[in-house]
């Protein structure tokens, strides 16, 4: 049985998945664009938390709302919304992320229908007053969800949601752990397909599917006892990875990805929510402690140090920075993170992604050249 097949199908047509889920459950779908979205609350409200990525379709409408110096994520999802490709969403919620998303939220609220909520989380994550404020924001979001979706979110439902979301996170961590210990056991593009589907799948279904997949792969590795891989080990760093092409290119050049700190990858599942104590406080806690997104502040060396620690812990030979063009927060962090790697003689390469432009040839050249360097 191909345990990846279901994930690939969902990842290829996430909108179809959501539409079918809606029909089957008679429930609501809530879109979001950020890994700081408190999906536990959305799940506890009986809705499907749906992480929106651009479909990659040709831009025609969005240029009338957003200038050319806007990142492909914001432009692409707005295009999809205006074209009606996101009609299955009952609403969208916008955690405060960056300047672009902040304005996208306004433009969306003014031009796209459906339930809309701003989750104006603090930018600072390292002070007590920010922690207090964050909790207040989560309480407000809970109330907004209840009002917007016409439901009541009980404490029990929230605790259940936390548990099921944690199960999913553990499942993803198992797959990542397997990939770094036995890089050949799981192809990069397969794991990417899993993550892509994980962004939209119903939490229970996701947890089950991940556990099955992980059980199967771990058992296979144990049975086959493959030799230690000689492939060069790479860490990827960036925001979104909506380009699966990177994996076959890397692997064809004789290397393997052993970790990534993507918003749609490592950052998405790292860290569990404490299942004891007050649920909202526990959710807030996870967001404060998880490796910081560059649009947030928790000290001035955190991301660089985290990357360095991971590179060393996972014995990586190099880092590829995949940065989305026009993404300011990631752009500002790149020089110092590269400098920290340079200090330790860890080779790195930068590749700028433009969401709408297919650049496989260019990526391949750079990747190969980088690997020829290692």
């Amino acid at each position, binding site marked *: 049985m191909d345990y990846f097949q279901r994930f690939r199908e969902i990842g290829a047509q996430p909108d179809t998945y959501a539409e079918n889920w809606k029909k089957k459950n008679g429930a609501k779908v809530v879109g979001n664009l950020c890994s700081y979205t408190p999906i536990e609350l959305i799940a506890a409200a009986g809705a499907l938390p749906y992480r929106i990525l651009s479909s990659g379709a040709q831009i025609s409408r969005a240029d009338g709302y957003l200038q050319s110096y806007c990142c492909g994520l914001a432009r692409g999802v707005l295009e999809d919304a205006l074209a009606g490709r996101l009609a299955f969403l009952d609403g969208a919620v916008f955690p405060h992320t960056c300047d672009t998303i902040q304005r996208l939220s306004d433009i969306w609220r003014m031009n796209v229908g459906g339930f809309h909520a701003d989750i104006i989380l603090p930018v600072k994550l390292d002070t007590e007053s920010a922690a207090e404020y964050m909790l207040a924001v989560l309480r407000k979001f809970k109330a907004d969800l209840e009002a917007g979706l016409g439901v009541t979110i009980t404490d029990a439902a929230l605790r259940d949601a936390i548990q099921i979301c944690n199960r999913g996170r553990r499942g993803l961590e198992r797959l990542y752990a397997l990939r770094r210990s036995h890089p050949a056991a799981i192809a990069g593009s397969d794991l990417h397909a899993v993550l892509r589907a994980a962004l939209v799948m119903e939490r229970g279904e996701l947890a089950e599917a991940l556990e099955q997949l992980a059980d199967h792969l771990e058992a296979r590795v144990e049975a086959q006892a493959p030799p230690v891989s000689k492939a060069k080990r790479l860490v990827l760093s960036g925001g979104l990875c909506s380009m699966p092409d990177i994996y076959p290119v890397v692997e064809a050049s004789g290397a393997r990805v052993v970790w990534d700190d993507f918003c749609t990858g490592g950052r998405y599942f790292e860290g569990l929510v404490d299942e004891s104590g007050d649920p909202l406080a526990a959710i807030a806690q996870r967001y404060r402690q998880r490796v910081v997104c560059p649009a947030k502040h928790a000290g001035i060396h955190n991301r660089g140090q985290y990357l360095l620690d991971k590179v060393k812990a996972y014995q990586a030979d190099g880092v590829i920075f995949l940065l989305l063009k026009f993404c300011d927060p990631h752009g500002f962090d790149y020089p110092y993170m590269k400098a920290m790697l340079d200090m330790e003689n860890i*080779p790195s390469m930068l590749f700028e992604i433009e969401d709408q432009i297919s650049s496989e040839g260019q990526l391949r050249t750079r990747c190969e050249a980088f690997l020829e360097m290692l």
Partner: protein
Amino acid sequence: MITAGIDVGSISAKAVLFENNNVMASQVILTGYNSQNAGRQVFDRVLKQAGLEAGQVAKIVATGYGRNSIAFAHKAVTEITCHAAGAFFLDRRTRTIIDIGGQDSKAIALDDSGKVKDFAMNDKCAAGTGRFLEVMARALEVDLDAFGAMSLTADHAAAISSLCTVFAESEVISLIARGEQRANIIAGIHASVASRVVSMAKRVGVRAPIMMTGGVSKNIGVVKALEEKLSANLMVSDRAQVTGALGAAIIAAGL
């Protein structure tokens, strides 16, 4: 042992035959639509030039944009690594390479053993490449080959500040309308290219001596503009256009 390097770029394809640390022959043709055919063609031509048969070539390495389509090559290696090998062979003192081709430009930093330490590429944007010069030559109604010599007669470089080739073209047209001398405008165009390329080069760190490769190195005006921006002299080999293919042939010798 005779080896061959084939560099199939998007505009031109180059081939070099190499034996005992010597370049036996080299050829340059236009790539056209079919990189596989271009690779075959330029290889045949360089064989003919040296009076050899394909069977006499022990190893072949392909590089450039079309490297993966050259079925008869033993290995495909990127043009970054090949330019490094080629430039280092031409002059072992080389520590930085600036390559400006028809459609892209690159900067490569070498370590003391000639290995690639870091690199940066511009293959997204016409500004800072040969294409930029072509567009401007059309706007000025001047033969591109005359650019170099004409720019040397300029009394100053007219300021052309736009990042975008299309806007820069309209700046050039405005300058013509204002009666600015062509030589000065061309000097300004060269300064603009130099600005873009040096900016990119400094990201990888520029260490002298610096070698320039790629077709645009035939333009003395661009060379001078780069030297001014870098405050350093550039080494330009007469093999500048085939450095990639040369490097590929050298790498083939090590296979």
